[in-house]
């Protein structure tokens, strides 16, 4: 007897976006939290349907922006006042209006970099292997099918009960995702 492969989760397949949104809503109401949905195009309502989980990305970007802002101003201050003071047009060394453009640019630069890097750090990309691709029909997720996956790490997950629950959502089919 072969040992069964470990299970990553259960995946239900749907024909249209409305059904996958409805299914995600039902699953969330049922108490499932480790959900993910896959569709050929972005569906705005899906995130909300799965609980509208807020990421920490805005906070990371805000901190990045503040660091850039303070850093940019500090750089200007240090070079112009401390390290290499130059008399420019008889203006004071600490001429804040002249520092604003650099401060602004540094704010945007660091905020934008934190957005990109923070996004990658939070979603774990790039990811060369993902178990959902073990389901052969999953290739259709980039064409005309919509998938909802309940992951096994969800505390409510139970292979039998979760499968029965997913069947009630009238999917085309429910497949087990091997890890």
């Amino acid at each position, binding site marked *: 007897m072969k040992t069964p492969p470990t299970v990553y989760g259960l995946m239900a397949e749907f024909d249209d976006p*409305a059904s996958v949104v409805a299914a995600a809503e039902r699953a969330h109401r049922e108490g499932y939290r480790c959900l993910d949905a896959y569709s050929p195009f972005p569906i*705005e*309502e899906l995130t909300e349907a799965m609980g509208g989980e807020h990421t920490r990305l*805005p906070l990371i970007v805000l901190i990045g922006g503040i660091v850039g802002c303070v850093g940019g101003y500090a750089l200007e201050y240090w070079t112009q006042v401390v390290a290499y003071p130059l008399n420019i*047009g008889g*203006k004071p060394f600490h001429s804040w209006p*002249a520092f*604003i453009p650099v401060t602004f640019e540094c704010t945007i630069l660091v905020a934008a970099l934190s957005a990109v890097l923070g996004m990658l750090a939070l979603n774990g990309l790039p990811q060369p292997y993902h178990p959902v691709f073990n389901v052969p029909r999953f290739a259709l997720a980039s064409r005309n099918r919509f998938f909802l996956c309940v992951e096994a790490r969800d505390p409510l997950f139970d292979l039998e009960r979760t499968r029965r629950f997913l069947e009630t959502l009238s999917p085309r089919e429910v497949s087990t995702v091997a890890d």
Partner: protein
Amino acid sequence: MTPLTQTADVAIPELKPMQQRLLVAGAAGGVLSLVGALLDTTQFLQSYLMAYMFWLGVTLGCLALGMIHQLSGGAWGVLIRRPIGAASRALPLLTLLFLPIALGLSRIYPWMNADLVAHDEVLQHKHVYLNAPFFLARAAIYFIVWNVISFFLNAWSLEQDRTGDFRFARRMQLLSGGGLVAYGVTITFASFDWMMSLEPHWFSTIYGVIIMGGQGLSALAFLTIALVWLSRRAPLDRIVVPAHFHDLGNLMLAFVMLWAYFSFSQYLIIWSGNLPAEIAWYLHRMETGWRPVAVALMLFHFAAPFVVLLSRTVKRQPELLVKVAAAVLVVRIVDLWWLIGPEFHTGGIAISWMDVVLPLTIGALWLVVFVSQLRGRAILPIHDPEFDEALGRIIERGAPPRTAH
């Protein structure tokens, strides 16, 4: 269930008594203003110019946002399309209200003073441009351009409502392309003429753009308040979702930054050059008693709304967003007060009761026209090409479908 094709008059019965109350308020304010005009004509004209520029800003800002939406499309503009149209149809009123300024030229514009010009070589050279007949002729051109654009956009929008013919959408797009260019040119010259020439020696080429950014911000703040008000009543109460306010909040944030960017650009260039002819304008506004106003503008016209509007929570909650919008309208008036006031009161801050009464009076009259124009049409542009996109998700979720078709 109220069908969406009903006119706002039928759908929202509160509009009619509101219009009557506003008319009474406008008439009362008009009497007060008249007393003010007799007591102190110059102060009256100063406050009047400020109030006029503010409400003209809301109107033209709405017209310009409407044209931008014709070109860019997007769900953000569909729900505010009717308030935009109603606001732009207040242009004939503003054309009429320009009269006191036209009649009072010699009291507010130094270049009208023949003695002053006779002893001032710069003003003699500028006389080719800054003289009463040419000034009035230019004003006439601005008003013709604005009224013509507004007239055709509104007429075609009405036809589109009636027939559902998408050809009108195409026509409105074509006119909006040229119309935006015309708006940019006319508002640049209008702000040079009506506001910048209060200090005729001084010039700044970005001045018109600063005014434009301010107009966009005023219009967005006004439209936000209008949409919040409408969203509490049928039929919009079952259509508006937080995402709609989120869009307006984001745009308001963008315009706050745009205004700050333009204003600071002007300051940075003049500050760096440090030339006597250019810095005088800032000296009058920052090295006199007006300085606290300049500081307040940095804090409350930029910093505070910028920080507050970063918050997603604020942008998605109409009760909070409407407060931000109201505060933005107030600082917009303060900004105009700071741009105009120091020319009349060089010594320092001077505020007259007319600085409060006139914006409210012109505002009441303006709102009378706005509300009456809003009443005449359906509250949503059913046949707008973007209509389904803006409302699609609500219809999908079982809200009643539109009654048109």
